[in-house]
């Protein structure tokens, strides 16, 4: 133990901590953009790999159903096969109407996925536009879009869908288009809210002010600086909503206000399986499983993206 009170002047040998140039630029490792960085994080996450593989598979099934089954899904139905057990070439058995379950699931993918994708695209266009305008300009623009959004937000989706689908125009044109329309009308406020929040967070950043003082117009700075920086939560929500919309389509079809019976979709199959659920649960279980796996994949992808795009994990 040291006992002398007088503090001596200590100097560390310079070799121990050689002086570096003040604020030298690191010239090693490759430059990384936000997306490159996110990708680097993502490709090592099992959650992302599994969900991405699943989604890729679902897309292939939707685009090329012929690759997976040669059996026609509806015109090959033979009533003698009603509720039949799996046989050679029909691995999942038959529905009440005697149709091949496996083939119907494969061919139903397209309608379900189309509803999801088109709904999300339309929700993105409307929600992001409204939300960005509301968040960026504030004031009465914000109030207007916020109240408008609240009105639609307050409608329960099933009740709202019931009302909208009973409009004469909608009744006459039932199909993918009408389902998408219903989902978009009732679904955009969520996207608008998220976008508004993200835009408000970014709009007062110094780099936006800097861009404005460089001569960039207000709308120009919104498009070139604010939106790209607000994109991360929007992408995450869009991915998750894709799953949610696929479920919603099934719900609507199940209630008989979604796809017309002529269109093959998982929701219609689940609806048709009601009658035989006690005698032949497989008729219900298989399309329901396909639906769950698809939705789960999208929600898992959303989760993985959220972690990877989290700005807090990016400071070095």
């Amino acid at each position, binding site marked *: 133990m040291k006992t002398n009170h007088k503090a001596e*002047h200590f100097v560390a040998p310079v070799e121990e901590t050689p002086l570096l140039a003040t604020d030298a630029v690191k010239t090693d490792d490759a430059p990384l953009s936000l997306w490159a960085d996110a990708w680097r994080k993502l490709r090592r996450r099992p959650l992302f790999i599994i969900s991405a593989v699943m989604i890729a598979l679902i897309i292939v099934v939707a685009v090329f159903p012929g690759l997976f089954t040669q059996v026609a899904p509806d015109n090959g139905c033979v009533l003698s096969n009603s509720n039949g057990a799996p046989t050679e070439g029909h691995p999942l058995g038959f529905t009440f109407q005697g149709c091949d379950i496996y083939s119907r699931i494969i061919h139903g993918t397209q309608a379900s996925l189309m509803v999801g994708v088109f709904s999300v695209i339309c929700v993105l266009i409307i929600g992001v536009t409204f939300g960005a305008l509301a968040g960026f300009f504030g004031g009465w623009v914000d109030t207007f879009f916020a109240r408008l959004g609240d009105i639609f937000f307050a409608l329960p989706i099933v009740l709202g869908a019931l009302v909208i689908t009973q409009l004469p125009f909608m009744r006459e044109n039932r199909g993918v288009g009408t389902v998408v329309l219903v989902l978009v009308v009732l679904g955009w406020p969520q996207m608008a809210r998220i976008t508004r929040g993200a835009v408000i967070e970014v709009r007062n950043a110094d780099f936006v002010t800097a861009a404005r003082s460089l001569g960039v117009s207000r709308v120009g700075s919104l498009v070139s600086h604010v939106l790209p920086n607000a994109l991360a939560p929007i992408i995450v929500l869009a991915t998750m909503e894709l799953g949610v919309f696929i479920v919603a389509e099934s719900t609507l079809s199940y209630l008989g206000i979604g796809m017309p019976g002529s269109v093959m979709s998982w929701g219609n199959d689940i609806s048709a399986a009601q009658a035989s659920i006690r005698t032949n649960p497989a008729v219900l279980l298989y399309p329901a499983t396909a639906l769950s796996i698809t939705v789960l994949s999208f929600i898992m992808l959303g989760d993985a993206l959220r972690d990877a795009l989290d700005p807090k994990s990016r400071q070095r």
Partner: protein
Amino acid sequence: MTTSDVTIHEAGTPADRPLLEIRDLAISFKTGSGEVQAVRNAHLTIMPGETVAIVGESGSGKSTTALAAIGLLPGNGRVAGGQILLDGEDISNASEKRMIELRGNVIGMVPQDPMSNLNPVWKIGDQVRETLKANGRPSGPDDVAKVLAQAGLPDAARRAKQYPHEFSGGMRQRALIAIGLSCQPRLLIADEPTSALDVTVQRQILDHLDKMTTELGTSVLLITHDLGLAAERADKVVVMYRGNVVEAGPSLELLQNPQHPYTQRLVASAPSLASRRIQVAKQLGVSTEDLLASAEAVAGEPSMTEDVLQIQNLSKVFKLRSGFGKSTDFTAVDDVSFNVKRGTTTAIVGESGSGKSTVAQMVLNLLEPTSGKIIFDGVDTSALNSKEIFAFRRRVQPIFQDPYGSLDPMYNIYRTIEEPLRVHKIGDKASREKKVRELLDQVSLPQSTMQRYPNELSGGQRQRVAIARALALDPEVIICDEAVSALDVLVQAQVLNLLAELQSRLGLTYLFITHDLAVVRQIADHVCVMEKGKLVETGSTDDVFDAPRQDYTKALLHAIPGARLMLPPEVA
């Protein structure tokens, strides 16, 4: 190891035994890429009643060392070697139970940021009571009020019933000091206790902290980035650099005779010290011009006397919403007039809330003045149409305070610097790339930086990119809004030198908004002092510094840390 009682501070200890002794301390952090050594071979000694300062730049390990002493390293950090002896007891690997006994009672702490270190949903008094209770001390309302009153809070009994949002920054810091000292610890760790506060408030707080700790005989471990402040307040200074203690010794001796090259560099460029040196030199008859030759050497501009900017009776009133449909007026800028001569640097100085940044925003034409005129090069800027404003933007460019916020994280450096050229449709792709390369050279960044993204650069490098972007359009006036405030001293000096060099080479005019008078002294030709929206004093830098007329200016000048130090007037 933990057999001794909590009442360690009452046991008689020999006066020559250090209260805290850190020997060969090594601290490492577990990160995604393995174990990283944050601190190596750190050692320091604090005698009872002594104040010791650790000085270093961000990332030098100074806070980590202090946190280790109070056993509050983050979860992924650990003491990898060495000893921390508190009054002879090794606490480097003490049990959590023992550390809880020691915290508050024997070691107190005043954290850095007064804005985030008080719980916003608790009354101030409750937060003090919590500390008292946790350490088994009387915690009635009177005791709480007494503790707060000792920390210099007027009307303590009433203040104790208020919430943090009702306190100003300085008052919050006093409350934190009250909490840190409430149990009369023998050692107080103050981690940058005043870096978030205005200079005059900083001075008051530090004076009061000095007084209290002297009365109580408390030892203080002060962590700061400001060498001037450290030397003024501490008996001993420990300089840390890249996780190592590079130099330690009595503060004055260390300043006058720095041995390690890093300390030498630090002493040469700390603004508070540089400012002090100018003053000392003046008294000895050396002219400021010689000392600041690099900063003042403006190339032979023919129009040196022309006023490029004239601010006339400028006012800005904000409407604050207060309740339903009502609003109250808040005058942020009140009848401000001054002129800026071409090729010179004019500084607007003031504390937070003085309206200096609002002036900058109005000069940049980003905010409409309520009344008054801004005349740039003979033209009233408020009368410009949108096309003329676009042209005006080419000639007046800003550099902002926060180097982390002023660059778009989605743009790489090339796109960032190229943006103004693209917006103003200057040149083609090839010529723009050539210009970007030139600009990077001008701000002494390697051209390979072009492909990088802002998050890969340090604060100073980002600020240099921001300067390059501002220079891209060959502007005449650059508005620096606290452009160096967020940087470490050495980096700050580097950026200031760069700005001075660019001024002499390109004949730029700077309007420099800052709260830091020490910086002003180094670079400005003229100073405007603002207080609560009003311009209280203007004049040449020398006049204002040598013969301040207003009390407010005097208070500001007096508050520069290190103002009382005696330093050799050598030229840095």
